[in-house]
């Protein structure tokens, strides 16, 4: 007795009332660009099949809709309508196939879900790891745990870039080929990625139990010490303070990394090689960052001490994009001897 009204386009509602909830969640329309975006909307790899479900449902709707529209047209136009319908169907199928292939390729190559487990951290964890990176642990008989995450190291590298930019501008650095931003980004990322790979290669030679991800994480967290030192010394221009911080803070973070590596390596020669290389590179990098980008302070000391000090000649330094090692040592020597000379003069 109770009959329900049957709509004529019944096949159009291929997604019945029970799937209606999905349609409200689908954003945007039916164009290809936004389709890709909807596939991106899946926020976890477990939801990828949901995204495919949406895709399939929408394709079914579009198919059913196209079929229904063609049926209506075909009725009116007869034979001509049939041919047009056929060509339209063929074109439609080709388009669907192409779109499916493109979206499959897109989801294969642009799949950032590969990196997702490395970003699975909480703020409290990041904070505790930052603090632990400054505390060397004495226990070296037992392989120490290294957190394999990439969020902390990546953020520290970006912070270092920001601090370098701040320091470069306050120091009137002149850069010939290349730009300030490019140099800063290139230096920091180059150090992080390059030295991590080099240490991983050495660890492979020395038979240490460490993976590439762990060297990336270890070195990344080691940059926390660099950030602190540079942040302080770019604002307080005192060489003695810089050396103190270099030894203390830089030394602490180096000791921590060395302790972790020692706990994972067997044999004295291997330990010496690996840890010596890492310590040297780490400390020298901090030295390089300070001196290559930091103004020498004779001018300030000059104004503080008064007229009896002979005026220092400050030559505008041209720093090419890559500072060769010889120039670096000359610059460092210059800076230290000048600072020493000024302090001696003042006494």
């Amino acid at each position: 007795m109770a009959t329900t009204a049957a709509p004529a386009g019944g096949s159009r509602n291929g997604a019945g009332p029970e799937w209606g909830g999905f349609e409200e969640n689908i954003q945007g329309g039916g164009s290809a660009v936004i389709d890709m975006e909807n596939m991106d909307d899946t926020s976890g790899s477990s939801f990828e099949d949901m995204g495919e479900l949406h895709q399939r449902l929408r394709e079914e709707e579009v198919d059913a809709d196209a079929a229904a529209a063609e049926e209506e047209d075909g009725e009116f136009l007869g034979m001509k309508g049939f041919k047009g319908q056929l060509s339209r169907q063929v074109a439609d199928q080709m388009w669907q196939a192409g779109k499916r292939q493109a979206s499959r390729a897109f989801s294969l190559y642009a799949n950032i879900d590969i990196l997702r487990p490395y970003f699975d951290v909480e703020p409290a964890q990041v904070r505790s790891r930052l603090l632990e990176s400054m505390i060397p642990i004495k226990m070296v008989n037992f392989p120490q745990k290294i957190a394999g995450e990439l969020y902390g190291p990546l953020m520290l590298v970006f912070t270092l870039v920001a601090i370098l930019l701040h320091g470069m501008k306050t120091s009137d650095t002149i850069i010939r080929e290349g730009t300030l931003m490019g140099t800063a980004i290139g230096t920091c990322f180059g150090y992080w990625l390059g030295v991590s790979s080099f240490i991983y290669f050495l660890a492979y030679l020395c038979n240490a139990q460490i993976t590439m991800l762990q060297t990336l994480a270890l070195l990344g967290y080691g940059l926390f010490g660099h950030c602190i030192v540079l942040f302080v010394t770019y604002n307080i221009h005192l060489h003695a303070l810089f050396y103190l911080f270099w030894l203390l803070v830089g030394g602490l973070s180096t000791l921590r990394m060395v302790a972790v590596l020692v706990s994972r390596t067997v044999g004295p020669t291997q330990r010496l090689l690996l840890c010596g290389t890492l310590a040297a590179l780490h400390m020298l990098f901090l030295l390089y960052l300070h001196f290559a980008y930091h103004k020498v302070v004779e001018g300030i000391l000059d104004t503080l001490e008064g007229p009896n000090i002979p005026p220092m000649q400050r030559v505008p330094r041209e720093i090419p994009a890559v500072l060769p090692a010889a120039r670096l040592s000359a610059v460092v020597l210059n800076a230290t001897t000048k600072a020493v000379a000024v302090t001696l003069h003042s006494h």
Partner: protein
Amino acid sequence: MAEAAESPGDPATASPKPLFAGLSDISISQDIPVEGEITIPMRSRIREFDSSTLNESVHNTIMRDLKAVGKKFMHVLYPRKSNTLLRDWDLWGPLILCVTLALMLQQGSADNEKDGGPQFAEVFVIIWFGAVTITLNSKLLGGNISFFQSLCVLGYCILPLTVAMLVCRLVLLADSGPINFMVRLFVVIVMFAWSVIASTAFLADSQPPNRKALAVYPVFLFYFVISWMILTFTPK
């Protein structure tokens, strides 16, 4: 006309009925075909767009897009928790702002002496790659915001910094000195805070609640770098 036939013995009528329960008892005669278009609203809207936007005049299209961009600018200047930026995202606004900022920050021709200023391409690349990096980061942290929505929000929230750039340019027309610098510093800091707050208001809801700080920190760094470029800009 549909005739309604009640069935007295229907068990549904005995118990207290929900609102439209009586409708199930209506029977419809076979003479009257029941037909019509059951359209899903989204699809019909798209059909409308397809036919109408192609035929309208260029003036109409431009004005409509400009109005949409202007409306989003208002949302950025008075940030409330709304999702207008998220729902109808577009990248026109960020493009306009980025080009404006890059043009104003350009240092002119490269001299031999002071070649340290940012060039147009540099600013452009920094803004877009910075926004892409932040988007990837927030997606990897488990946020459920789409790629282009995030780009849209980050681009639109550069508006306060562009205003700061304009103000700094005007202030630099006066003679330079420490007061000049303090004024510019104050303006840039205020606009930087405004940008960060605006983008947080839009982006924070898309993150899991305990990881908001992790997603906001790179936004802070991004706007810090842009503010630094604005503050240290000195015309030749």
